[in-house]
């Protein structure tokens, strides 16, 4: 297959062009500075003491031996945190360094700084912590009956349903129509999702540099530099302006960098020693160094009429949030809001509960609650199709949610949501014929393992549909600032705090600026809290929309300002806000205003898989997808997001799970936490369905999450078709297929 592309210049394009990335050149040269590549003269290396227990009291911490080791400059505990002792994305329930208790394996207890990494490592080993182990809470259902891990209930109130049971982070109920409405056919199922990890390749890392005046500059790979600053500053007992956060090169994020990693630790050590301090987690530490996707148990009941109309759905969703709240309250809300899938269902009862346990803390991961529910809901829809004798694609078309329909939260779907078009375009993609034997083992299930020459191999075709919100929800005051400087010589500099995490937002910003300003001479300044207001997080598939809006507005304002002045240098900053949302009613889960969600995006996927049913090994052969993308600012980048998001869904379907025992991760390495390789990913045929989102800049929509939401469900659909097994748990284990 030949690929033609411009060979010599990096296109400096406009919105809608297929563009190459400016930052690709330093990246291919190995010259792009990731956070783990940073260094500074006089730099020390930091390291962290982490709890080996999932739940324990800290009886004593003895630092004396560590303090005497060569090269050690600082050994710090919670006593050395000058300001607030806790932090958190939504609730400050997480200690900077454990105080009297640890609640998960890997919880930070102390940090050190030394001349060399090896010296820091030895200092860590020399710190003696005396623990009194306590019984860990590790089962998400039993957690509701056990001792509360956070007796002060940090998430109570806040406009949520009051749930007095211990260890509830959030309990959300959505009551829509008549939850007892009947159907001719009833399908019940119980589904389970294991813990997935973002497994971004770039380790958690950063460099904290004291400014000599009591303040600090933190260079870190993160998703939202301003919210990092706002969590760090109170802990350091500093005004926000004295904590300057700079975006360092990010080696992937996928939600795993929304929460803090080394930011406060590094800053503490830097301020304490008066030296720059670098911290970089190795892969094993990384697994305990960030939050993961919530594992879930989901019970469903779907009722439908004989002619295929879904009349009523009841779902109970239980999410294990692990030791600290992170963004679990929002994940629970998302899971519930989109639990049914993009179908018009007049009656529903959806309950989502996120709980505290002593398992690894969970938070944001691409798809954010909708992945887990899509897997369950789509399995249910396939079963309904089978019960009713209706083609699974037809059944989805029949019930498809479209603008003008009502979500179970009572929100009327406005804007673009071309669900039927997406279904049709995906269903119309031609699936490849079965490849004849003999084949190279690489082209059979088992791959390089040489396990079959065709024996036991069955082929299956599956289909799934999924959707979720674009942008933040429930009244979150989300905004994005951008600053544009028009130089006297005609060139322009754009300042944006938008985190480039690999998704290509730097390209979007430049495209928008070049389009609006009508010049190619636009550069993007490094993202820093000191130079521009918050851009919000690179999350919720919001960054393109929000950055495009902010940069557009700032460009237009800059041009107006220059015209008003009659030329000269101009420097303006503008803040863009998307249409407002309001919270859901805590008792009914219904909207309190016009909408709880800004916009929706839908994707459909068709999968061909082959399964060696005797060994339980699967190979995905082909994937075809149609996705509602609003307006593709850069189709090349949009395809990249769809291909990458699909790979992560394939991983959850077939191979990715953090295995825990009593709260400890047993497979904290790439040897045993398996992500898809080049031999695991099939070709992905993509149909971009462009129907402009009316209230979005340039009609854009976020594209990063829908492929991850739908792909796990679609792959499972194909596996069920091939094996005839119910496959109610992901990731699928070989035992589930062949034993």
């Amino acid at each position, binding site marked *: 297959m030949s690929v033609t592309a411009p060979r010599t210049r990096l296109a400096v394009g406009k919105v809608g062009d297929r563009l190459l990335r400016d930052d690709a050149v330093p990246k291919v040269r190995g010259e792009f500075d990731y956070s783990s590549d940073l260094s500074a003269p006089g730099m020390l290396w930091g390291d962290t003491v982490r709890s080996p227990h999932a739940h324990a009291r800290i009886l004593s911490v003895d630092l004396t031996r560590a303090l005497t080791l*060569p090269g050690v400059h600082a050994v710090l505990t919670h006593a050395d945190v000058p300001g607030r002792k806790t932090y958190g994305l939504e609730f400050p329930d997480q200690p900077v360094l454990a105080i009297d208790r640890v609640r998960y394996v890997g919880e930070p207890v102390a940090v050190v700084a030394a001349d060399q990494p090896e010296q820091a490592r030895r200092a860590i080993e020399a710190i003696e912590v005396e623990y009194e182990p306590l019984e860990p809470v590790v089962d998400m259902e039993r957690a509701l009956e056990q001792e509360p891990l956070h007796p002060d209930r940090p998430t109570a109130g806040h406009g949520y349903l009051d749930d007095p049971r211990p260890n509830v982070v959030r309990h959300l109920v959505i009551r829509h129509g008549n939850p007892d409405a009947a159907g001719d056919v009833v399908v019940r199922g119980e589904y389970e999702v294991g813990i997935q990890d973002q497994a971004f390749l770039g380790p958690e890392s950063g460099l904290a540099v004291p400014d000599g005046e009591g303040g600090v500059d933190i260079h870190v790979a993160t998703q939202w530099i301003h919210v990092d600053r706002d969590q760090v500053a109170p802990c350091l007992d500093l005004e926000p302006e004295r904590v300057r956060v700079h975006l360092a090169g990010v080696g992937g994020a996928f939600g795993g960098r929304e929460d803090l990693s080394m930011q406060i630790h590094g800053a503490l050590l830097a301020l304490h020693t008066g030296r720059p301090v670098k911290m970089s987690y190795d892969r094993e530490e990384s697994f305990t160094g960030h939050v993961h996707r919530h594992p879930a148990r989901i019970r469903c009941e779907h009722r439908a009429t004989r002619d295929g109309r879904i009349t009523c759905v009841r779902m109970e969703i239980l999410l294990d949030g692990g030791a600290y709240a992170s963004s679990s309250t929002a994940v629970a809300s998302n899971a519930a809001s989109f639990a049914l899938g993009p179908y018009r269902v007049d009656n529903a009862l959806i309950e989502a509960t996120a709980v505290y346990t002593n398992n690894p803390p969970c938070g944001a991961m691409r798809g954010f609650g909708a992945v887990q529910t899509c897997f369950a809901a789509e399995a249910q829809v396939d079963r309904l199709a089978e019960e009713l004798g209706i083609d699974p694609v037809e059944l989805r078309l029949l019930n498809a949610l479209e603008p003008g329909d009502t979500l179970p939260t009572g929100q009327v779907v406005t804007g673009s949501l071309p669900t039927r078009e997406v279904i049709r375009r995906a269903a119309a993609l031609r699936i490849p014929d079965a490849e004849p034997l003999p084949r190279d083992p690489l082209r059979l299930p088992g791959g390089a393992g*040489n*396990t079959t020459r065709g024996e036991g191999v069955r082929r299956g075709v599956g289909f799934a549909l999924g959707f979720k919100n674009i942008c933040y929800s429930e009244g979150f005051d989300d905004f994005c600032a951008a600053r544009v400087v028009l130089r006297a010589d005609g060139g322009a500099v754009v300042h944006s705090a938008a985190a480039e995490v690999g998704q290509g937002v730097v390209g979007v910003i430049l495209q928008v600026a070049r389009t609006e300003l009508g010049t190619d001479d636009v550069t993007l300044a490094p993202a820093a809290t000191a130079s521009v207001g918050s851009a919000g997080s690179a999350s919720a598939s919001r960054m393109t929309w929000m950055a495009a809006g902010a940069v557009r507005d700032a460009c237009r304002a800059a041009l107006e300002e220059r015209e008003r002045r009659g030329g000269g240098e101009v420097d303006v900053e503008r803040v863009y806000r998307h249409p407002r949302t309001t919270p859901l009613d805590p008792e009914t889960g219904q909207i309190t205003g016009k909408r709880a969600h800004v916009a929706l995006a839908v994707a459909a996927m068709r999968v061909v898989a082959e399964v060696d049913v005797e*060994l339980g090994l699967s190979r995905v052969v082909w994937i075809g997808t149609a996705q509602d993308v609003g307006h593709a600012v850069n189709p090349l980048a949009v395809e990249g997001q769809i291909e990458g998001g699909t790979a992560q869904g394939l991983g959850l379907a077939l191979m990715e799970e953090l295995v825990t025992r009593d709260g400890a991760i047993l497979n904290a390495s790439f040897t045993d936490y398996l992500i898809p390789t080049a031999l*695991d990913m099939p070709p992905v045929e993509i149909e971009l369905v462009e129907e402009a989102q009316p209230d979005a800049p340039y009609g854009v929509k976020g594209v990063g999450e829908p492929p991850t939401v739908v792909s796990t469900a679609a792959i499972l659909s194909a596996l069920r078709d091939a094996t005839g097994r119910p496959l109610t748990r992901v990731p699928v*284990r070989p035992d589930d297929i062949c034993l």
Partner: protein
Amino acid sequence: MCLSSPVDVHTPRTLDEALELKAALPEARFVQGGTDVMVELNFGRSRPPALVNLAELDELRGWSSEDGELRLGAGLTYTEAMRPELAELVPALAEAARTVGSPQIRNRGTVGGNLGTASPAGDALPPLLAEGALVDVASVRGVRTLPLDEFLLGVKRNALEPDELVTAVRLAPSGGPQTFMKVGPRNAMVIAICSLAVIVDAAAGEVRASFGSAATTARRVTVPLAEAAALPERVADAAAPIDDVRATAAYRRHSLRVLASRALERCLRS
């Protein structure tokens, strides 16, 4: 960038030098391909006082064939095992090499390393065991040879004395139809959930199978050719698999049965 307690690295240029070093430094660790040792060093799990780098020893390189006996140097890499000339002599070893990780790992992982680490999952071990390979071991005290199944003692335990080094593996290739198969949860780069090498040796009138990752060491099962159909059950019976993070014992036993049945079919048909 020197540390307070550096590790001494010795790079002997001759085998004798290497043996003398190991005799003088019994706590030293050998490193050749590094695919096992370096992981332990990188994560601080192992801090030996000294390392002996075997990568410059000509005596461990390559392979030779004489009078029907094949000698594989301990330094033979998986990539070399896949090359046509050698692959023709021990096809199951070449197939095993192909299942190993990636080109990067295949270029460095060695037969000697598989033996030194003695993991029950070592990919080279089942094909070598199935061919009744012998292990040559040397020290300043001399050389000795022992069968591979006596060399492998348990999980990551082998019969090497502290001053000994594996120099080669020798076998008389039976030349019979053979295959190697490995079960893993994705299509590449996996530690075997279980693996199986099967050789049909018509001249000896037997079928030999050797499995990995289903007991404390790789193990061999031999059945007379006339009773070949019993092989899958015999393999399943000989296995002593465990539940671990990668798979269940039940699955391992089941899949060995399936692999054995398929391997037999493959070998008898060819």
